[in-house]
């Protein structure tokens, strides 16, 4: 993977981007138990496969989402983040 398609700037060299980690849903801090909160803070789904991640275009200060195969290091698609509608962590065909 050497190029990444930013949803607003088009295809740009990978060096222009910062990786933001897998998309995760935050439990409600008011109702989450200590164990749920610790799980959210530290634990990650790192098993091989396809997943949705945060990426940031440094020059334009823009966060967006990418669906990427972390074993083959290929991006399947990139798309805009639309408000609170965070897609499922795992793609349906993962």
């Amino acid at each position, binding site marked *: 993977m050497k190029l990444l398609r930013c949803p607003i700037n088009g295809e740009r060299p990978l060096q222009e981007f910062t990786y933001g*980690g897998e998309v995760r849903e935050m439990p409600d801090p008011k109702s989450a138990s200590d164990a749920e909160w610790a799980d959210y803070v530290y634990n990650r789904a*790192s*098993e091989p496969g396809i997943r949705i991640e945060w990426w940031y275009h440094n020059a334009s200060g823009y966060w967006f989402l990418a669906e990427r195969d*972390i*074993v083959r290091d290929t991006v399947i698609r990139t798309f805009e983040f639309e408000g609170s509608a965070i897609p499922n962590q795992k793609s349906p065909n993962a």
Partner: protein
Amino acid sequence: MFRAPDALKSSYDVVIIGAGGHGLAAAYYLARDFGITNVAVLEKSYIGSGGTGRNTAIVRSNYLTPEGVRFYDASVKLFEDLSQEFDLNLFYSKRGHFTLAHSDGAIRTMRWRAEVNKHLGVDSEVVDPAFIKSKCPQIDLSCGHNMPVLGALYHPPGAIARHDAVAWGYGRGADQRGVEIHQQTEVTGIRVEREKVVGVETSKGFIETNKVLSAVAGWTPSITEMVKLRTPLTIQPLQACVTEPIKPWLDTIIVSGSLHIYISQSSRGELVMGAALDPYEVQNQRSTLDFVEGLCGHILELFPFLHDVKILRQWSGLSDMTPDYSPIMGKTPIDGFYIDAGWGTYGFKATPICGKTMAETIAEDRDHELIGAFNLSRFENFDLVGEKGAASVGH
């Protein structure tokens, strides 16, 4: 050097997943110290094919946390006698290890590390630029007039060793004591009943066992998923390269956290060089041109005369990183499932002590005192062990 058993037995007292240095060392000490020899070490590829054969072979103990220093110091002491014990030349070579400081902030961290090290009896001191120059006359302390070297943390016991031979030595020693090493045997599942391990599914059939050790570093998430255990591990490639062999000139090991480089010269004359982790998660041992360009740029700031030396080959290994740069070791909430992971960028130097402590942990079903702080439960209890002396931490 090893027997190649043709078939798996139907049951073993202990099954170890991964025939790298850590897995084989655990098998060796289980057999030698505890007389537990009905052990199978399962390896999906070949012995030492993962991180064991891909690191830059540095051994040191000048870490920052008391937990880390004690642990790695015990490892260095074991390393020093290993060639004798195995009757196998590990090319263990004490070189003296310099961690360069290019800023006041870095000097402060070096002083902190030196004082913790000395308090725990580890030979470690902050030294000035003239001392560095006396031990390594070839270095350009102005660092290309970019980030001048202000001093260093000097660790005389710092050493390099032939990493493959460490795995072979432990493997042969375990094999001679009756442990079976099965290469080309992949674990496909772990059977758990009532939170207790009862067996392992492999590409060559099912094995009954009540004790399983996962010692697979960068492949740990695939194994922990089999027992539905969540961990904080993320997997990132760590790349390295060697130059063509040249006349011996570099006695010491030179590391710079600020430039993200480390360099030493092997007994074959190659300069062995490594850098920081790749900037995003990938579970693939691929190499990149970015890495060589970035690394060589910084190496040339310290050693400009290397400008016409060629890179011979480059490679990558998978690092299983934890948020506090300390490993995850010991018992888990699943009875009979033991973990030795989170080895990120520091697994090779810990090989002997990991084997020894995990063997005791498995034999007695109780975390060895040196690894108590590294249990997976620290992430539930918000009780982390921040190891800022790790190679991948910038200062």
